[in-house]
């Protein structure tokens, strides 16, 4: 049988196309496989975007909300006059109920030494209303900030707070980094 050069060229192109297709499919498959992860995703609040609108307290499917106030102690001034603990223009810098800003008295004020006080959040009482966060941001260093507590959060497929958040401060993140906690001004990394 005579060897037809036209047929062999056509065969060569056909084989080449098949191999190229296979290689492309393999590359795309491999690339996709690299991005497959078994890691879970969770909801996270960016405290730098949060505008303390109060919806975390009213819109979460959990009662009380899975959003709680967190305290960045290294950022706190431990002030006697704390804008997050005391109402603006309080009668006295004391723990009296009429002077407290928190509607549920979830912040405990502990004397350390003159004139420093430590402020501790009672998570069971906190409803995530962000009233203290507003006070701390307006008058202080912004050490009080909101975070979604993942042992309480149901991790809904569509977070009802994220849907209503006016500042888009809530987003899905990998479960390996569930919290975005504020840092200190003496920390070089944070500036």
């Amino acid at each position: 049988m005579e060897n037809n050069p036209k047929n062999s060229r056509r065969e060569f192109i056909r084989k080449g196309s098949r191999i190229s297709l296979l290689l492309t499919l393999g590359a795309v498959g491999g690339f996709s496989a690299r991005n497959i992860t078994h890691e879970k995703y969770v909801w996270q609040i960016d405290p730098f975007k949060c505008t303390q609108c109060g919806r975390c307290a009213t819109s979460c499917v959990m009662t009380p909300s899975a959003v709680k106030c967190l305290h960045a102690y290294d950022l706190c001034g431990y002030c006697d006059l704390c804008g997050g603990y005391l109402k603006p223009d309080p009668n006295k810098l004391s723990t009296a109920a009429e002077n407290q800003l928190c509607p549920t008295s979830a912040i405990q004020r502990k004397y350390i030494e003159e004139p420093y006080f430590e402020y501790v959040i009672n998570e069971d009482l906190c409803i995530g209303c962000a009233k203290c966060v507003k006070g701390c941001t307006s008058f202080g260093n912004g050490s009080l900030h909101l975070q979604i507590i993942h042992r309480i959060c149901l991790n809904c497929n569509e977070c009802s707070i994220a849907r209503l958040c006016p500042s888009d401060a809530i987003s899905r993140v990998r479960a390996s980094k569930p919290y975005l906690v504020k840092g200190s001004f003496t920390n070089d990394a944070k500036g």
Partner: protein
Amino acid sequence: MKNKGIVIFLISLAIVIIVVVTIDYISSKPGELPANPYALGMDLFSRTDTALIMFNEKRNLTINFSEPTGLCISNGKIFVVGDQKLQIIEPNGNLLKEINFELKPTCVFASPDNIYIGFRKSLTILNREGLKIANCNSFSDSTVITSITERSGIIFVADAGKRIVRKFDQTGKPVGEIEGKSGNDQIHGFIIPSPYFDLAFNSDGDLWIVNPGKHSLENYTPDGKLRTWWKATSVRIEGFSGCCNPAHFAFLPDGSFVTSEKGMIRIKVYKPSGEFLDVVADPSKFKDNVHAPDVAVDGLGNIYALDIDRKMIRLFVKKENR
């Protein structure tokens, strides 16, 4: 009879449409929710009686900085630092000189002879031509330099990280510290909750240092002994609010204090004795939750405020009918 059925159908359809539209209208959407039941009303404190505002904003100088940090005025020239540079500007906005650095300066002070540039953990001394005379790195890891002043050859450096004022000679050699502690029960050393710690000499040569955690201004002898102090704690206009105010201050030619506050931004004037006098600029002049503007005063008593967020120097001049 056939028409009657169509009419009933159309009426029913109209009712359904009205119900759907009404439900959609009253349903929860961003921006349509009821008011925040936990809102912290700040309007009462951020609104200022206009009768108290005794200064007009006369002009603005836009500056070529992405992050300005400090301002001072000396011999009719404006010194601004930020980014990695110092700019010397005439009051009309004409740029006289620009000097670049490897690090980002945090503050500046210019004496008739020298220019002192504070960085986060170091101090550089330049002559008025901008040539480096000395450098000082004798600081600790936690140092955060926020302000500098100089008198009789001694440089006073406010270290917010260590909560002390450090003293150096003109070669950059340490010659002492001021801790701000005294036997007085009311005064407890410097309480610096955030990197705002300012100091300045008035025209009488008195050293005044802010104790922001106590809302006080304290007068010290150059060797660090407390001479006198005054404080004004209140969220109302006549006082200083929050954790750490005033953030910056300067002196008018008559010795009155010009103070600048962070959080609820306010620039005000206090008498040399510490009594509240005037408002220069109220919170409505600034964006919400922005940096406290550094302030400086020229020989005529005009007040210059470094608006860090708008990246401009704003000039406030006393109203003429005063």
